[in-house]
Protein backbone atom coordinates (compact mmCIF):
# COMPACT_ATOMS: atom_id res chain seq x y z
CA UNK A 1 0.00 0.00 0.00
CA UNK A 2 1.10 3.54 -0.65
CA UNK A 3 2.97 5.22 2.19
CA UNK A 4 1.30 8.27 3.69
CA UNK A 5 4.11 9.06 6.08
CA UNK A 6 5.27 12.66 6.40
CA UNK A 7 8.29 13.83 8.34
CA UNK A 8 6.43 15.46 11.19
CA UNK A 9 3.79 17.98 12.20
CA UNK A 10 5.37 20.92 10.37
CA UNK A 11 5.18 19.12 7.05
CA UNK A 12 1.74 17.72 7.87
CA UNK A 13 0.14 21.11 8.46
CA UNK A 14 2.14 23.15 5.93
CA UNK A 15 -0.76 23.77 3.55
CA UNK A 16 -3.36 24.66 6.16
CA UNK A 17 -4.47 28.06 4.93
CA UNK A 18 -5.89 31.16 6.60
CA UNK A 19 -9.69 30.91 7.06
CA UNK A 20 -9.59 27.10 6.80
CA UNK A 21 -12.08 24.91 8.64
CA UNK A 22 -10.36 22.38 10.88
CA UNK A 23 -11.68 19.46 12.84
CA UNK A 24 -9.59 18.57 15.87
CA UNK A 25 -10.15 15.29 17.71
CA UNK A 26 -10.26 14.94 21.46
CA UNK A 27 -12.57 15.20 24.46
CA UNK A 28 -11.31 17.73 26.97
CA UNK A 29 -7.53 17.29 26.75
CA UNK A 30 -7.84 13.54 26.13
CA UNK A 31 -6.84 12.38 22.67
CA UNK A 32 -5.97 15.80 21.25
CA UNK A 33 -3.41 16.25 18.44
CA UNK A 34 -0.78 18.01 20.54
CA UNK A 35 1.95 17.97 17.90
CA UNK A 36 -0.15 19.50 15.12
CA UNK A 37 -1.57 22.17 17.42
CA UNK A 38 2.01 23.20 18.25
CA UNK A 39 2.91 23.40 14.56
CA UNK A 40 -0.18 25.44 13.66
CA UNK A 41 0.72 27.76 16.51
CA UNK A 42 4.25 28.15 15.14
CA UNK A 43 3.00 28.59 11.58
CA UNK A 44 0.61 31.32 12.69
CA UNK A 45 -2.34 30.41 10.44
CA UNK A 46 -5.17 32.87 11.09
CA UNK A 47 -8.94 33.02 10.88
CA UNK A 48 -9.46 29.35 11.64
CA UNK A 49 -12.85 27.78 12.21
CA UNK A 50 -12.26 24.93 14.65
CA UNK A 51 -14.72 22.09 15.07
CA UNK A 52 -13.85 20.34 18.30
CA UNK A 53 -15.93 19.09 21.21
CA UNK A 54 -14.06 21.42 23.59
CA UNK A 55 -11.76 24.40 23.33
CA UNK A 56 -8.89 23.28 25.52
CA UNK A 57 -7.70 25.16 28.60
CA UNK A 58 -5.95 28.50 28.81
CA UNK A 59 -2.46 27.18 28.19
CA UNK A 60 -3.03 23.84 26.50
CA UNK A 61 -4.81 22.31 23.54
CA UNK A 62 -6.87 24.63 21.37
CA UNK A 63 -6.52 27.20 24.15
CA UNK A 64 -3.01 27.89 22.78
CA UNK A 65 -4.46 28.90 19.40
CA UNK A 66 -7.10 31.05 21.09
CA UNK A 67 -4.44 32.94 23.00
CA UNK A 68 -2.68 33.88 19.77
CA UNK A 69 -6.04 34.84 18.21
CA UNK A 70 -5.68 32.33 15.38
CA UNK A 71 -9.23 31.10 15.85
CA UNK A 72 -12.14 33.02 14.35
CA UNK A 73 -14.86 30.58 15.30
CA UNK A 74 -15.32 27.57 17.55
CA UNK A 75 -17.94 24.89 16.89
CA UNK A 76 -18.18 22.84 20.08
CA UNK A 77 -20.51 21.29 22.63
CA UNK A 78 -18.82 22.55 25.79
CA UNK A 79 -16.29 25.33 26.17
CA UNK A 80 -15.82 25.85 29.89
CA UNK A 81 -12.42 25.81 31.64
CA UNK A 82 -10.94 28.61 29.55
CA UNK A 83 -10.76 32.22 30.75
CA UNK A 84 -9.22 33.64 27.56
CA UNK A 85 -11.97 31.99 25.58
CA UNK A 86 -14.56 33.69 27.78
CA UNK A 87 -12.89 37.07 27.39
CA UNK A 88 -12.81 36.83 23.57
CA UNK A 89 -16.37 35.59 23.43
CA UNK A 90 -17.72 38.40 25.61
CA UNK A 91 -15.72 41.02 23.68
CA UNK A 92 -17.07 39.71 20.38
CA UNK A 93 -13.63 38.75 19.03
CA UNK A 94 -14.60 35.09 18.82
CA UNK A 95 -17.66 33.46 17.32
CA UNK A 96 -19.01 30.37 19.01
CA UNK A 97 -21.55 27.85 17.81
CA UNK A 98 -22.71 25.46 20.50
CA UNK A 99 -24.07 22.09 19.39
CA UNK A 100 -25.39 19.22 21.52
CA UNK A 101 -22.59 16.70 21.87
CA UNK A 102 -24.44 13.80 20.27
CA UNK A 103 -25.60 15.99 17.42
CA UNK A 104 -22.03 17.18 16.92
CA UNK A 105 -20.73 13.61 16.82
CA UNK A 106 -23.46 12.56 14.40
CA UNK A 107 -23.08 15.59 12.14
CA UNK A 108 -19.38 14.84 11.80
CA UNK A 109 -20.13 11.17 11.20
CA UNK A 110 -22.66 12.20 8.53
CA UNK A 111 -20.03 14.40 6.89
CA UNK A 112 -17.68 11.48 6.49
CA UNK A 113 -20.46 9.11 5.46
CA UNK A 114 -21.95 11.25 2.69
CA UNK A 115 -25.24 11.85 4.51
CA UNK A 116 -26.14 15.52 4.06
CA UNK A 117 -28.83 15.59 6.74
CA UNK A 118 -30.61 13.46 9.35
CA UNK A 119 -33.24 13.79 12.04
CA UNK A 120 -32.39 13.79 15.75
CA UNK A 121 -34.50 14.47 18.84
CA UNK A 122 -31.80 16.47 20.66
CA UNK A 123 -32.74 20.12 21.04
CA UNK A 124 -36.42 19.90 20.08
CA UNK A 125 -38.26 22.75 21.78
CA UNK A 126 -35.02 24.51 22.76
CA UNK A 127 -33.12 27.42 21.25
CA UNK A 128 -31.04 24.88 19.32
CA UNK A 129 -34.15 24.25 17.19
CA UNK A 130 -34.32 27.84 15.95
CA UNK A 131 -34.62 27.90 12.16
CA UNK A 132 -34.50 24.13 11.86
CA UNK A 133 -37.09 21.86 10.30
CA UNK A 134 -39.07 19.88 12.88
CA UNK A 135 -40.77 16.66 11.85
CA UNK A 136 -42.69 14.05 13.75
CA UNK A 137 -41.95 10.33 13.41
CA UNK A 138 -44.01 7.79 15.32
CA UNK A 139 -45.37 10.46 17.65
CA UNK A 140 -42.05 12.06 18.57
CA UNK A 141 -40.54 15.28 17.27
CA UNK A 142 -37.11 15.51 15.66
CA UNK A 143 -34.88 18.24 14.22
CA UNK A 144 -33.23 18.07 10.82
CA UNK A 145 -29.49 18.54 11.22
CA UNK A 146 -26.87 18.89 8.46
CA UNK A 147 -23.53 17.21 8.00
CA UNK A 148 -20.25 18.85 9.02
CA UNK A 149 -17.10 18.56 6.93
CA UNK A 150 -13.72 20.23 7.12
CA UNK A 151 -10.84 21.32 4.93
CA UNK A 152 -8.51 19.49 7.30
CA UNK A 153 -9.16 16.95 10.02
CA UNK A 154 -6.44 16.50 12.59
CA UNK A 155 -6.61 13.42 14.73
CA UNK A 156 -4.50 11.72 17.34
CA UNK A 157 -4.24 7.95 17.59
CA UNK A 158 -2.28 5.53 19.71
CA UNK A 159 -0.90 3.35 16.91
CA UNK A 160 -0.94 3.78 13.19
CA UNK A 161 0.63 2.11 10.18
CA UNK A 162 2.17 3.63 7.09
CA UNK A 163 -1.06 3.03 5.13
CA UNK A 164 -2.93 5.26 7.57
CA UNK A 165 -4.79 2.61 9.55
CA UNK A 166 -5.34 3.81 13.12
CA UNK A 167 -5.97 2.32 16.57
CA UNK A 168 -6.96 4.53 19.51
CA UNK A 169 -6.51 3.86 23.22
CA UNK A 170 -9.09 4.10 26.00
CA UNK A 171 -11.40 7.11 25.87
CA UNK A 172 -8.87 9.00 23.75
CA UNK A 173 -10.85 7.62 20.81
CA UNK A 174 -13.90 9.92 21.28
CA UNK A 175 -14.38 12.20 18.24
CA UNK A 176 -11.22 11.16 16.41
CA UNK A 177 -12.66 8.40 14.18
CA UNK A 178 -15.58 10.44 12.84
CA UNK A 179 -13.36 13.45 12.25
CA UNK A 180 -10.81 11.32 10.40
CA UNK A 181 -13.56 10.50 7.90
CA UNK A 182 -14.93 14.03 7.55
CA UNK A 183 -11.83 15.92 6.45
CA UNK A 184 -10.90 16.66 2.84
CA UNK A 185 -7.35 16.13 4.06
CA UNK A 186 -6.93 14.08 7.22
CA UNK A 187 -3.73 14.27 9.22
CA UNK A 188 -3.07 11.64 11.88
CA UNK A 189 -0.42 11.89 14.56
CA UNK A 190 0.34 8.65 16.35
CA UNK A 191 2.37 7.61 19.34
CA UNK A 192 3.64 4.55 17.55
CA UNK A 193 4.05 4.27 13.78
CA UNK A 194 4.41 0.73 12.48
CA UNK A 195 4.89 -0.87 9.04
CA UNK A 196 1.82 -2.24 7.25
CA UNK A 197 0.95 -5.72 8.39
CA UNK A 198 1.69 -5.14 12.08
CA UNK A 199 -1.81 -4.03 13.06
CA UNK A 200 -4.48 -6.70 13.27
CA UNK A 201 -7.04 -5.83 10.54
CA UNK A 202 -9.79 -6.79 12.98
CA UNK A 203 -8.65 -4.22 15.58
CA UNK A 204 -8.44 -1.16 13.37
CA UNK A 205 -10.70 1.73 14.40
CA UNK A 206 -9.99 4.05 11.46
CA UNK A 207 -9.30 2.38 8.10
CA UNK A 208 -6.44 4.02 6.20
CA UNK A 209 -8.70 5.18 3.38
CA UNK A 210 -9.68 8.14 5.55
CA UNK A 211 -6.12 9.26 6.29
CA UNK A 212 -3.96 11.23 3.85
CA UNK A 213 -0.95 11.98 6.08
CA UNK A 214 0.48 10.26 9.12
CA UNK A 215 3.49 10.85 11.33
CA UNK A 216 5.06 9.67 14.53
CA UNK A 217 4.21 12.30 17.16
CA UNK A 218 6.67 13.19 19.89
CA UNK A 219 6.76 14.42 23.49
CA UNK A 220 3.12 13.92 24.41
CA UNK A 221 2.29 15.78 27.59
CA UNK A 222 -1.21 14.28 27.92
CA UNK A 223 -2.22 16.80 30.52
CA UNK A 224 -4.92 15.67 32.93
CA UNK A 225 -7.76 18.10 33.68
CA UNK A 226 -9.25 16.39 36.73
CA UNK A 227 -6.80 14.11 38.41
CA UNK A 228 -9.02 12.05 40.69
CA UNK A 229 -7.57 9.31 42.84
CA UNK A 230 -9.19 6.75 45.11
CA UNK A 231 -7.46 6.07 48.38
Amino acid at each position, binding site marked *: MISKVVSGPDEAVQDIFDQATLMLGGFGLCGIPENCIASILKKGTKGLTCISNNAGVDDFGIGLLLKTRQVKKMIS*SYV*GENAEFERQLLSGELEVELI*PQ*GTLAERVRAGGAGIPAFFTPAGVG*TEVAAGKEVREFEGKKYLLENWLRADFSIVKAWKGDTAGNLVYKGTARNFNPMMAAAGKITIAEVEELVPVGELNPNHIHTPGIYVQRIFHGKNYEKRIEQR*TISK
Partner: protein
Amino acid sequence: MLDKTGIAKRIAKEVKDGMYINLGIGIPTLVANYIPSHLNVVLQSENGLLGIGPFPKEDEVDPDLINAGKQTITMMPGSALFNSAESFAMIRGGHVDLTILGAMEVSEQGDIANWKVPGKMVKGMGGAMDLVASAKHIIVAMQHCSKEGASKLLKSCTLPITGIKCVKRIVSDLAVLDVLPQGGFRLLERAPGISVEQIKNATAGSLLIEGDIPEMTI
Protein backbone atom coordinates in the same frame (compact mmCIF):
# COMPACT_ATOMS: atom_id res chain seq x y z
CA MET B 1 -34.37 17.92 54.45
CA LEU B 2 -31.86 15.89 52.46
CA ASP B 3 -28.32 16.96 51.82
CA LYS B 4 -26.59 16.05 48.56
CA THR B 5 -25.58 12.67 49.92
CA GLY B 6 -29.16 12.04 51.01
CA ILE B 7 -30.47 12.83 47.54
CA ALA B 8 -27.88 10.52 46.00
CA LYS B 9 -28.77 7.73 48.44
CA ARG B 10 -32.47 8.05 47.70
CA ILE B 11 -31.86 7.99 43.95
CA ALA B 12 -29.69 4.90 44.34
CA LYS B 13 -32.84 3.07 45.47
CA GLU B 14 -34.29 3.56 41.98
CA VAL B 15 -31.53 1.47 40.44
CA LYS B 16 -32.47 -2.04 39.33
CA ASP B 17 -30.35 -5.04 38.52
CA GLY B 18 -28.90 -5.12 35.01
CA MET B 19 -29.43 -1.44 34.27
CA TYR B 20 -27.22 0.62 31.99
CA ILE B 21 -27.02 4.07 33.56
CA ASN B 22 -25.70 7.47 32.57
CA LEU B 23 -24.83 9.69 35.51
CA GLY B 24 -24.52 13.44 35.08
CA ILE B 25 -21.99 15.64 36.83
CA GLY B 26 -22.57 16.66 40.47
CA ILE B 27 -25.04 14.83 42.73
CA PRO B 28 -25.73 12.17 40.05
CA THR B 29 -22.06 11.14 40.13
CA LEU B 30 -22.41 10.53 43.87
CA VAL B 31 -25.20 8.02 43.22
CA ALA B 32 -22.61 5.47 42.10
CA ASN B 33 -21.33 5.27 45.66
CA TYR B 34 -24.68 4.07 47.02
CA ILE B 35 -25.80 1.49 44.49
CA PRO B 36 -26.18 -1.78 46.44
CA SER B 37 -23.24 -4.02 45.67
CA HIS B 38 -25.41 -7.03 44.85
CA LEU B 39 -26.83 -5.19 41.83
CA ASN B 40 -25.06 -5.55 38.52
CA VAL B 41 -25.22 -2.21 36.77
CA VAL B 42 -23.10 -0.71 34.03
CA LEU B 43 -22.25 2.98 34.04
CA GLN B 44 -21.92 4.72 30.71
CA SER B 45 -19.55 7.59 30.11
CA GLU B 46 -20.69 9.49 27.03
CA ASN B 47 -17.13 10.13 25.89
CA GLY B 48 -16.92 6.47 24.95
CA LEU B 49 -17.04 3.86 27.72
CA LEU B 50 -19.47 1.35 29.14
CA GLY B 51 -18.28 0.10 32.52
CA ILE B 52 -16.86 3.00 34.54
CA GLY B 53 -14.88 1.69 37.50
CA PRO B 54 -13.67 3.45 40.66
CA PHE B 55 -11.19 6.31 40.50
CA PRO B 56 -7.68 4.99 39.95
CA LYS B 57 -5.02 4.52 42.55
CA GLU B 58 -2.09 6.88 42.17
CA ASP B 59 -0.11 4.38 40.09
CA GLU B 60 -3.07 3.44 37.90
CA VAL B 61 -3.78 6.94 36.57
CA ASP B 62 -4.07 6.88 32.77
CA PRO B 63 -4.56 10.21 30.96
CA ASP B 64 -6.19 8.28 28.10
CA LEU B 65 -8.98 7.10 30.38
CA ILE B 66 -11.35 9.78 31.63
CA ASN B 67 -15.07 10.18 32.22
CA ALA B 68 -17.37 12.85 30.78
CA GLY B 69 -16.44 15.12 33.70
CA LYS B 70 -12.81 14.79 32.56
CA GLN B 71 -11.88 12.91 35.74
CA THR B 72 -9.41 10.06 35.60
CA ILE B 73 -11.17 6.71 35.99
CA THR B 74 -10.70 2.96 35.68
CA MET B 75 -12.65 0.33 33.77
CA MET B 76 -14.67 -2.54 35.22
CA PRO B 77 -14.11 -6.05 33.85
CA GLY B 78 -16.38 -6.45 30.82
CA SER B 79 -16.04 -2.83 29.72
CA ALA B 80 -16.32 -1.70 26.14
CA LEU B 81 -14.74 1.35 24.50
CA PHE B 82 -16.22 3.15 21.50
CA ASN B 83 -16.32 6.49 19.74
CA SER B 84 -18.59 9.46 20.47
CA ALA B 85 -20.98 8.74 17.60
CA GLU B 86 -21.52 5.21 18.88
CA SER B 87 -21.91 6.54 22.40
CA PHE B 88 -24.72 8.86 21.42
CA ALA B 89 -26.21 6.22 19.14
CA MET B 90 -26.63 4.21 22.34
CA ILE B 91 -28.19 7.15 24.12
CA ARG B 92 -30.41 8.31 21.25
CA GLY B 93 -31.42 4.77 20.39
CA GLY B 94 -32.89 4.24 23.85
CA HIS B 95 -30.39 1.60 24.94
CA VAL B 96 -29.45 3.36 28.19
CA ASP B 97 -32.03 2.39 30.82
CA LEU B 98 -31.68 5.28 33.22
CA THR B 99 -30.30 8.80 33.06
CA ILE B 100 -29.73 10.73 36.25
CA LEU B 101 -28.95 14.40 35.98
CA GLY B 102 -29.15 17.70 37.79
CA ALA B 103 -31.53 20.53 37.00
CA MET B 104 -31.92 24.21 37.70
CA GLU B 105 -35.65 24.12 36.94
CA VAL B 106 -38.27 21.54 36.02
CA SER B 107 -41.74 22.40 34.75
CA GLU B 108 -44.93 20.51 35.51
CA GLN B 109 -44.85 19.33 31.87
CA GLY B 110 -41.52 17.64 32.49
CA ASP B 111 -39.47 20.28 30.71
CA ILE B 112 -35.98 20.70 32.14
CA ALA B 113 -33.59 23.65 32.26
CA ASN B 114 -30.03 22.91 33.25
CA TRP B 115 -27.58 24.35 30.76
CA LYS B 116 -27.74 28.12 30.55
CA VAL B 117 -28.37 31.17 32.71
CA PRO B 118 -28.90 34.33 30.68
CA GLY B 119 -26.30 36.94 31.53
CA LYS B 120 -23.83 34.33 32.74
CA MET B 121 -21.07 32.81 30.64
CA VAL B 122 -22.54 30.05 28.46
CA LYS B 123 -20.35 26.99 28.59
CA GLY B 124 -22.47 24.78 26.38
CA MET B 125 -24.91 21.94 26.72
CA GLY B 126 -22.40 19.13 26.30
CA GLY B 127 -24.42 15.93 26.05
CA ALA B 128 -27.35 17.11 28.16
CA MET B 129 -29.74 17.86 25.29
CA ASP B 130 -29.10 14.48 23.70
CA LEU B 131 -29.58 12.71 27.01
CA VAL B 132 -32.86 14.37 27.94
CA ALA B 133 -34.30 14.06 24.45
CA SER B 134 -33.48 10.37 24.22
CA ALA B 135 -33.52 8.68 27.61
CA LYS B 136 -36.18 6.11 28.38
CA HIS B 137 -36.22 7.10 32.04
CA ILE B 138 -34.88 10.31 33.51
CA ILE B 139 -34.51 11.03 37.20
CA VAL B 140 -33.60 14.57 38.17
CA ALA B 141 -31.56 15.36 41.28
CA MET B 142 -32.16 18.94 42.37
CA GLN B 143 -32.79 21.46 45.09
CA HIS B 144 -36.49 22.12 45.49
CA CYS B 145 -35.95 25.88 45.94
CA SER B 146 -33.30 28.46 45.20
CA LYS B 147 -31.19 29.97 47.98
CA GLU B 148 -33.69 32.82 48.00
CA GLY B 149 -36.51 30.35 48.59
CA ALA B 150 -38.06 30.51 45.11
CA SER B 151 -39.50 27.23 43.85
CA LYS B 152 -37.63 25.43 41.06
CA LEU B 153 -40.57 23.12 40.32
CA LEU B 154 -42.57 25.46 38.14
CA LYS B 155 -45.60 25.76 35.91
CA SER B 156 -43.16 26.51 33.13
CA CYS B 157 -39.40 27.02 33.08
CA THR B 158 -38.08 30.57 33.18
CA LEU B 159 -34.57 29.59 32.09
CA PRO B 160 -33.69 28.43 28.55
CA ILE B 161 -34.71 24.78 28.45
CA THR B 162 -32.60 21.73 27.73
CA GLY B 163 -35.47 19.51 26.67
CA ILE B 164 -39.23 19.23 26.70
CA LYS B 165 -41.53 16.71 28.39
CA CYS B 166 -38.74 14.40 29.41
CA VAL B 167 -38.42 14.33 33.20
CA LYS B 168 -40.21 11.36 34.75
CA ARG B 169 -39.13 11.59 38.40
CA ILE B 170 -37.58 14.19 40.68
CA VAL B 171 -35.66 13.60 43.87
CA SER B 172 -35.19 16.93 45.64
CA ASP B 173 -33.98 17.84 49.10
CA LEU B 174 -37.65 17.91 50.18
CA ALA B 175 -39.46 15.18 48.28
CA VAL B 176 -39.77 12.50 45.63
CA LEU B 177 -42.22 13.45 42.89
CA ASP B 178 -43.31 12.11 39.53
CA VAL B 179 -44.20 14.24 36.56
CA LEU B 180 -47.63 13.09 35.40
CA PRO B 181 -48.12 12.30 31.71
CA GLN B 182 -50.93 14.90 31.55
CA GLY B 183 -48.77 17.44 33.41
CA GLY B 184 -48.37 18.28 37.09
CA PHE B 185 -46.21 16.92 39.88
CA ARG B 186 -47.42 14.02 41.96
CA LEU B 187 -45.99 13.85 45.45
CA LEU B 188 -44.72 10.38 46.31
CA GLU B 189 -42.52 10.74 49.40
CA ARG B 190 -41.49 13.37 51.92
CA ALA B 191 -37.90 13.88 53.02
CA PRO B 192 -37.34 13.05 56.69
CA GLY B 193 -38.85 15.76 58.88
CA ILE B 194 -40.52 17.58 56.00
CA SER B 195 -44.30 18.08 56.00
CA VAL B 196 -46.65 17.95 53.06
CA GLU B 197 -47.43 21.60 53.79
CA GLN B 198 -43.77 22.56 53.40
CA ILE B 199 -43.60 20.76 50.05
CA LYS B 200 -46.81 22.46 48.91
CA ASN B 201 -45.34 25.86 49.75
CA ALA B 202 -42.12 25.06 47.95
CA THR B 203 -43.78 23.86 44.72
CA ALA B 204 -44.97 26.51 42.26
CA GLY B 205 -46.23 24.03 39.67
CA SER B 206 -49.47 22.15 40.25
CA LEU B 207 -49.05 19.44 42.86
CA LEU B 208 -51.16 16.32 43.17
CA ILE B 209 -51.36 14.89 46.68
CA GLU B 210 -53.31 11.68 47.01
CA GLY B 211 -53.74 9.84 50.29
CA ASP B 212 -51.03 9.60 52.91
CA ILE B 213 -47.58 10.65 51.76
CA PRO B 214 -44.98 8.46 53.42
CA GLU B 215 -41.66 9.71 54.69
CA MET B 216 -38.90 8.27 52.57
CA THR B 217 -36.50 5.64 53.87
CA ILE B 218 -32.93 5.84 52.75
